[in-house]
């Protein structure tokens, strides 16, 4: 009787509280403690990493120039029906805006932005601003004065560009990064062939990353296999040859490759000394040089994870297959290789992701034809100071990287990422 009682009654802790409630509370406390421990890092990365990246993404669609420096024109032109020329009021607003811009020295900001859409707009704005303020007699038209000043003001095309840019965001930079341009209807179309540039740069980035990854895997896999199947003492010793370059500064390695590969470098003089070649080969500052140095940098990232996967495969499997009559090659292919595919593929994907964003090696060891997307992000930031283009190219590169990273996380799990 008493036994059934205890079976049916809810379980309680010593203090009479329901055990279920107590356990749930205990678990919640533990969760809160865990979250409290992660919170400082999450907050830190939010401020030093995620917000900066969000700023970059925002910058890729940011279009502040016209709306900030031509505020009255922007307000007036909103009412324009986009047929013929805008109204007298728009021209008058433009005259007032340009006068203020001239005083505040913001003319170059406006002209630089508008010149991106129509080349020659820069000089038009600057020349017109110099003539501000306009002297308009009663009954005279501001529009006529503008057109008299420069007949391009009578071309609706220029006003379309101003109207298009009179809002705080624009797809212009993202479109340009994909070799697209906006039609009058607002839809994207492919730019004419001679103006295209970036699609081929994205293509080149993927193409080079693919080759570098492929070569790294083809060279790294056998080495990992060899090291994993050597006696521990020998393999530990040889492993140092993999780990040492891994720990050495990338710049040291790039400098060494320049020494080795340059025209008068060690490889060329050795080959010429042996009489194999008559004149030096061009090995550095072209694609060969970039491939060699990049494979050198990324090989350890293939070898180390492959090695740890192979170490976990018991050698008895192969032995069993061979003793059951399989040829060693067949045993390798049917038994060993399939067990390594997942680990090696994960390593290869990581290498591909790292490759896509590489900047230093192509910048130092490549010619213009070897520069990848990262280079152009830096170029637009440092050289031409075009934040919009830098941010748009960066955003697209980020999207590509993050997509692959999501695939990687899904396949491997970010927590399974190992460091050799």
């Amino acid at each position, binding site marked *: 009787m008493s036994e059934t009682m205890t079976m049916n009654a809810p379980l309680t802790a010593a203090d009479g509280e329901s055990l279920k409630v107590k356990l749930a509370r205990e678990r919640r406390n533990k969760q809160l*403690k865990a979250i*409290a421990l992660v919170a*400082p890092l999450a907050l830190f990365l939010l401020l030093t990493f995620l917000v*900066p990246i969000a700023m970059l993404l925002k910058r890729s669609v940011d279009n502040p120039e016209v709306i900030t420096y031509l505020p009255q024109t922007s307000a007036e032109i909103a009412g324009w029906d986009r047929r013929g020329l805008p109204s007298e009021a728009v021209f008058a607003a433009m005259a007032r805006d340009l006068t203020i811009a001239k005083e505040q020295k913001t003319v170059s900001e406006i002209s630089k932005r508008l010149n991106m859409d129509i080349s020659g707009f820069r000089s038009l704005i600057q020349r017109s601003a110099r003539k501000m303020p306009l002297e308009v007699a009663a009954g005279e038209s501001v529009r006529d004065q503008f057109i008299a000043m420069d007949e391009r003001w009578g071309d609706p095309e220029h006003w379309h560009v101003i109207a298009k840019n009179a809002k705080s965001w624009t797809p212009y930079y993202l479109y340009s990064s994909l070799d697209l341009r906006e039609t009058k209807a607002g839809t994207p179309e492919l730019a004419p062939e001679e103006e295209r540039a970036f699609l081929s740069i994205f293509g080149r980035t993927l193409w080079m990353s693919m080759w570098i990854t492929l070569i790294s895997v083809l060279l790294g896999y056998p080495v990992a296999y060899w090291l994993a199947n050597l006696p521990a003492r020998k393999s530990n010793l040889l492993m140092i040859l993999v780990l040492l370059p891994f720990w050495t500064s990338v710049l*040291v390695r790039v*400098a060494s490759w320049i020494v080795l590969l340059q025209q008068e470098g060690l490889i060329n003089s050795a080959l010429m000394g042996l009489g194999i070649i008559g004149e030096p080969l061009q090995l550095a500052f072209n694609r060969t040089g970039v491939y060699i140095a990049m494979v050198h940098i990324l090989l350890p990232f293939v070898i180390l994870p492959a090695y740890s996967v192979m170490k976990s495969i018991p050698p008895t499997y192969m032995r069993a297959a061979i003793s059951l009559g399989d040829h060693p090659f067949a045993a390798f292919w049917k038994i060993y290789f399939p067990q390594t595919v997942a680990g090696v593929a994960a390593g290869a994907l990581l290498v591909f992701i790292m490759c896509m964003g590489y900047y230093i090696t192509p910048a130092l060891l490549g010619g213009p034809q070897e520069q990848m997307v990262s280079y152009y992000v830096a170029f637009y930031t440092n050289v031409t100071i075009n934040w919009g283009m830098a941010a748009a190219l960066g955003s697209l590169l980020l999207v590509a990287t993050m997509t692959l990273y999501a695939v990687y996380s899904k396949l491997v799990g970010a*927590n399974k990422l190992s*460091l050799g």
Partner: protein
Amino acid sequence: MLPNYASPIERIWFWTFRILCVSVLIFLVSPLLVIIPLSFSDNTFLLYPIENFSLRWYHEFFGNEVWLNSLKNSFIVAPVATLLAMVLGSLAAVGLTSSDFPGKSLLMSILISPMVVPVVIVGVGAYLFFAPLGLTSSYLGLILVHTALGVPFVVITVSATLGNFNANLIKASANLGANPLTTYRRVVFPLIAPGVISGGLFAFATSFDEVVVTLFLAGPEQSTLPRQMFGGIKENISPAIAAAATVLILFSIALLLTLEWLRGRAEKMRTAAVH
């Protein structure tokens, strides 16, 4: 090893495989070996053969204000960034492994992401965000971003160490009368310390080798050793770079040896803890 009855094809395969593996290993170390002797050359160009040996490029390196300043900056930024990364990363790793909560795997992916986001993007983003705050051309800005880049390594290594951690040890310690603090100090910390330190070494190496963010964020005052080398390689590659490279190679050997020593120690402690 190759058995006596191996067929000719097997023999050929065996040797091709060996030669391939050895060549790849030579490929991996040769650049490091090539640059060291050049740093002792008397020549003003980085060329072989070396005719006269001298220490003039080390004098150039250690006697030059610019190189010394960059070396000093590297030794300011990297240790501080490493320490920050070790503290923040270890706490987070303890939190991540101690309990399950909703969105944990997504959070883990985000915490690891600084490792995979192209550094150029981090650099430009940091510049955009830090410039209005006056954090560009400052040590603080550089340290903060270097910490962010290094922290994933600490999270990964400490999580991995904690994954191997036997939770019964905590219970055993409590059972033997230790309070939580003593348990942490005497039992938990010694066991996870190798993970924390090896993560720290990765974070240190990341910061110590970082160029791209430094290019965007640092002014000439904060130029680090890799930044200085980047400029040197780009403009005119002098043997002073070989001297800098040799110093860095020695440094990486030291890092590697420390790491291997830690790994051996961790292995010993783990087996000792189980028995």
